[in-house]
């Protein structure tokens, strides 16, 4: 295993890997950051992605990938510290501020981000986008949720299902 220990950053320059988006844009990032992705982690541990090779990510376009990497780069140091027991409150507050800002984005960007977080299996990002979606849903009725997320008008069958559900849980709709 030629891979350097991730995270101590003392082996001269940190190891870099190259990721290739679906539209063939190449991104060079630190291996530690890319390793936040469970999907990429094994490949990187095996020494992949270095040199001129690059790891192709056919499901992620360049706009989304750069966004994902922004997250990974920000979170990599804390992750390398193993959940950062020695992180200061300031650091944590800074990460939280970053996270809040990070998901303050257009819905279609969020959707792509959700898909990418899922494909790349980035735990923290998955939680973050789930939290964002939960925040979008809060305080909304089923129809408002549908409208917010751009669902088409319900078909008669769907409407019937919704009505049945609302009938069953009538107390929640009072």
């Amino acid at each position: 295993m030629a891979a350097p220990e991730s995270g101590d950053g003392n082996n001269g320059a940190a190891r870099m890997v190259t990721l290739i988006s679906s539209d063939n844009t190449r991104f060079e990032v630190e291996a530690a950051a890319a390793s936040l992705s469970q999907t990429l982690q094994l490949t990187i541990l095996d020494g992949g992605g270095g040199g001129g090779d690059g790891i192709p990510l056919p499901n992620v376009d360049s706009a989304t990938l750069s966004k994902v990497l922004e997250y990974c780069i920000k979170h990599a140091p804390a992750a390398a510290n193993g959940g950062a027991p020695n992180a200061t409150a300031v650091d944590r507050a800074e990460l939280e501020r970053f996270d809040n800002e990070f998901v303050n984005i257009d819905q279609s960007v969020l959707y792509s981000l959700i898909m990418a977080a899922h494909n790349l299996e980035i735990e923290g990002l998955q939680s973050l986008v789930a939290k964002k979606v939960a925040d979008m849903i809060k305080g909304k009725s089923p129809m408002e949720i549908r409208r917010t997320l751009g669902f088409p008008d319900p078909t008669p069958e769907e409407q019937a299902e919704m009505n049945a559900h609302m009938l069953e849980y009538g107390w929640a709709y009072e």
Partner: protein
Amino acid sequence: MESMVEGRGQHDWSQLHQDLLIRTFSRLDLPELVYSGAVCSSWRLSYCDVRRFRLCSPDQSPYLVYSSADRDSNTATLHNISTNNVYHVSLPDPPFRSRYIIGSTRGWLTSCPTCISSIRSPAQTFKDVTPSFTEDGVLSEYYISMPLTKVYRPRKRVTTCPSRSLARAFELGNSPIFFLILSNEDAHNSNHDGNLMVFVLHGTWMLRRSESIRSLLFRSGEDGNWQRAGRIQGHATPWHCSIRNEIDGVSPRDMARRRKLEGNRSNGGGQVDCAGVSTGTAYGGLGDIRAAEPSFSRVARILSPAPSEDQGVRILVGSSSFI
């Protein structure tokens, strides 16, 4: 690639991965949790999983559960004490108001009938635990029957307490059953192939204040017999008891943690400190168990053992957290 092909704003949110939906829904509190199940059929599946696996957020605020004076006797009122929202849930017979709530775990409210004759009825035998489901496949209720007198007979120490005394305990409004635990299996097996275990803590503290006697019984689905698992070490106050680990799967650490989480609220009224069980199960009572909406309360305590009938508010509390 998919995301490139799709145009902006054309994303189909009904097709979100189940994983994300479950993560999302488990962050929701009422009523949005319920609403999420109405959005579309794919969301409903994830919603049902969240309910079935009891994945509610640990941040969920506690609910007071009581029978409100301005509602009918079948209605349970759920009061979210952090948002001040109130929900009225209609429960099946027998009337909620007429029942003693003896605890709740994993979102289940446990109640037992107040009518002593129904407890001692010879017709009541060891029946299987019968689950019932809503149309969505969400487990909504269990019925468990347990003949009290039979349970008592094998217990030497308790044989000195005739059931007449027991009846008196009931008349005083104190259930000798403190609580019940259902096994975790209940959440995972919707088909209930006999894996469900029921733990019952009961005792006769009313009769001998100085020496409260409690024992823990359990019943596994496999052989269907009630067995005595161990004696319970009670604390000084009759209503404050904890379960000592005398059976596998009941971890004192879990219980200590649970108690710590719950704090040690002591009230004028009696209270039961329910200790949760991580690999085991829930507390049980005689009679049957009823569930209110499974997503609220997980552990409950009895604030007042014997509120009188004319009081509007009878019961108790659930705490919120899951897992």
